[in-house]
């Protein structure tokens, strides 16, 4: 058993930034991570952190960043969160620099910023194409040099709640096969997304929606789950690398998209912003071109940066160069890359308070990709790294403030024993969990993809229900120690929660907005300026529709008003 003031699940950027806040406020912290320290999905972030420091374009400031975030989130994002993000991001970047991160510089020694889709100005502070690595290493160093205990390779299976308040979490330590009970006054969930519920995704192994499901099962509300971001450019070949991210920086640094007829098709879809329009727009353009058959031999469109020359590419995009060289045998300094959309990010997630990141369960807080609100219907590139730093800090502050004067609540021992029994029970003869996970991911890919329709979505809901039923019969051999199959069983349960909430929410929203595109409802409609909220009701998922609050005058003046076409 391990006790601390604060428990954090997830050792990515948001979790570690939250830990630093809590430590700064004089509290002790335990961090639990499913993977090893420093391997969290943050490490994959390439392009940069969006912050209006204005080092490259002097006219940039928080109001423009705020407006970009609200407009490209297609007006259903939480404007208060967008405001906080835009105002706080510059200080979080400078602070990260003081922690030891080294950013690329302008000729006069300021922080270098690059252009990215949907950002009015060049705004992304970056370290080549390895910004995420720099963030995680910097935060990791900071945390490792404190008394914080990091329990890595521990998988949390359940959160215990007593009288509506969080009390503890049960984890399975993979290295030993032992169950560990973590008691704390408050909990921050920072477990990232659920991209693995799709077949083609840029997400790493651990993105199986664990935090979503833990919170949902503890009674918290999920919001905007239908909003799944397809990144326009993922690798298409070789098969093993399918879905691997091709950073937006390629386009930010001047890369252009071409179809098999050598036409720069973004001129048709978005004559003004072209390749640097928001991700939903570019992803759909790529999708339509591929669907129309104007694609390369592996079913992708072409992304070309070779005109920039070898020296430039090796300096600005070294990671992309080696990724294509090693995996696909393509030299991007000479030839074009073949790319197609890939599932990249969940805009939705646990519903939180914009100031404190508190969820609807007392004592549980959430930050980063697992939380919702900030990005609305579409996330801008670079806003997630800003998100994890800004809201990671706020969650740390929010949780420590909340726990002031509170004591640890003791969990019900019979509940803990019951949970241990549930986990152990998967070790039996049964269906292979990986087969069901594979099937689930295919359902999501085929019926809940980039362009949706009612028939497909209802089919998806049915098929997911069917998999849910069969999931009762899964089982694996082996023991509790480092048993990946057992992990697969546990993950499948969480993936099902993610898939159910995505498909049910998507089926409700009868319009096309941001990342949610429907062929049967192709237009955006004012009556759907809402958020769809899910929660667990007994054994069922119940939903409610919540109108987006109007932006107050002092903020509305920065944002161009939303315009609806008729229909």
């Amino acid at each position, binding site marked *: 058993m391990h006790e601390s003031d604060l428990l954090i699940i997830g050792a990515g950027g948001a979790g570690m930034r939250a830990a630093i806040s809590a430590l700064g406020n004089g509290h002790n912290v335990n961090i639990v991570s499913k*993977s*090893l*320290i*420093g*391997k969290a999905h943050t*490490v*994959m972030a390439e392009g940069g952190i969006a912050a209006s420091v204005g080092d490259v374009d002097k006219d940039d400031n928080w109001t423009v960043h705020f407006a970009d975030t609200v407009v490209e989130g297609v007006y259903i994002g939480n404007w208060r969160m967008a405001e906080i993000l835009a105002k706080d991001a510059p200080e979080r970047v*400078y602070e990260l*620099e*003081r922690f*030891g991160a*080294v*950013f*690329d*510089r302008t*000729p*006069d*020694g*300021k*922080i*270098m910023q690059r252009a990215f889709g949907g950002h009015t100005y060049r705004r992304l502070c970056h370290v080549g194409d*390895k910004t995420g*690595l*720099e963030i995680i*290493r910097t935060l990791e*160093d*900071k945390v*490792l040099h404190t008394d914080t205990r*990091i329990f*890595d390779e521990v998988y949390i299976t359940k959160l215990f709640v007593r009288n509506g308040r969080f009390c503890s979490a049960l984890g399975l330590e993979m*290295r030993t096969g032992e169950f560990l009970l973590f008691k704390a006054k408050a909990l921050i969930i920072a477990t990232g997304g659920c991209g693995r519920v799709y077949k083609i995704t840029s997400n*790493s*192994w651990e993105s199986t929606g664990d935090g979503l499901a833990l919170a949902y099962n503890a009674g918290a509300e999920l919001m905007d789950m239908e909003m799944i971001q397809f990144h326009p450019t993922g690798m298409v*070949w*070789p*098969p*093993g*690398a399918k879905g*691997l*991210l091709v950073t937006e920086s390629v386009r930010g640094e001047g890369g252009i998209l071409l179809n098999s007829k050598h036409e720069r098709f973004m001129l048709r879809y978005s004559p003004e912003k072209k390749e640097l329009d928001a991700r939903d727009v570019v992803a759909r353009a790529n999708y339509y071109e591929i669907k129309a058959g104007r694609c390369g031999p592996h079913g992708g469109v072409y992304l070309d940066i070779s005109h920039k020359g070898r020296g430039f590419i090796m300096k600005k995009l070294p*990671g992309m160069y*080696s*990724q294509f060289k*090693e*995996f*696909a*045998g393509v030299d991007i300094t000479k030839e074009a890359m073949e790319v197609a959309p890939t599932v990249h990010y969940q805009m939705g997630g646990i519903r939180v308070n914009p100031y404190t990141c508190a969820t609807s369960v007392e004592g549980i807080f959430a930050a980063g990709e697992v939380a919702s609100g900030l990005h609305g219907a579409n996330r801008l590139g670079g806003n997630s790294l800003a998100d994890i730093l800004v809201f990671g800090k706020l969650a740390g502050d929010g949780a420590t403030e909340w726990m002031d004067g509170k004591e640890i609540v003791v969990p019900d021992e019979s509940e803990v024993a019951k949970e241990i029994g549930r986990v152990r029970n998967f070790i039996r003869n049964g269906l*292979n*969990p*990986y087969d069901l996970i*594979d099937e689930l991911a295919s359902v999501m890919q085929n019926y809940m993809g980039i362009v949706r329709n009612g028939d497909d979505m209802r089919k998806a809901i049915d098929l997911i229900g069917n998999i849910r039923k069969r999931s009762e019969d899964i089982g*694996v*051999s*082996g023991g509790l*120690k*480092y*048993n*990946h*199959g057992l992990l*697969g069983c546990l993950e499948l349960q969480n993936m099902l929660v993610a898939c159910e909430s995505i498909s049910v929410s998507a089926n409700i929203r009868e319009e096309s907005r941001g990342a949610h595109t429907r062929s049967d409802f192709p237009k955006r409609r004012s009556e759907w300026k809402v958020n769809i909220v899910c929660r667990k009701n007994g054994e069922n998922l119940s939903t409610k529709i919540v109108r987006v609050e109007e932006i107050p005058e002092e903020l509305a003046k920065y944002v161009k008003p939303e315009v609806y076409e008729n229909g």
Partner: protein
Amino acid sequence: MDDVKEKRMIEISIYRTDGTGRGEYKDYEVPMQEGMVVLDAVRYVQEHIDTTLAVRWNCKAARCGSCSAEINNMPKLMCKTRIDTINGKIRVAPMGAFKGVADLVTDISENYLINRQIPEFSPKEAAVPWKIMQMDVERTKEFRKCIECFLCQDVCHVIREHKADYVGPRHIVKAASLDMHPMDTVDRSGFLNREAGIGYCNVTKCCQDICPEGIKITDNAIIQEKERAVDRFYDPLFWRKAKKR
């Protein structure tokens, strides 16, 4: 899709152990796919043949450094090693320099304990926001590419053969990344000389040969850091200077 048109099978031999020190290679047959990497084959075994096979992986994009192993006796990332670059049978074993946990998984936690000992970044007083030149950034950038796969620790014969008090290449690279930070003020020569045992490295450069990020570990980090320690502790001129002060 692709495995329908091509039914070619490949053989892969994976070291199985329960972590108690004993173990053996087991053979598996896996369908070949175009452009396949070793991790694809290992995961196929894990998902379809034996779900108890313990293997660590995460990003599958050579960015996280989780899937380190010894492939035909060479320390490599499984996600980055294409099957078609291997002649003959494929043998995959866990990293030998670390204690085994199960199958391909090893206990690398000692590395985080070492990291804790490296004196942390401590910046000089300067007006904010800082002005830093790109030239100075470049000096430290190479070392910041490290993905902590610990293959350099695995290949290091000082660690493997002698278990000497040497922290290993990864941690010297870490110290170098801090030492060459343009704003840092800490003198790490004491750490390098004592706790890090940098003198034990005899510059065989095995580590830089296998670094998946292509970091010139020995040339650019270890030799520079050795000089730093030597200047401070073994250079009579420095002693005289120090006395005068």
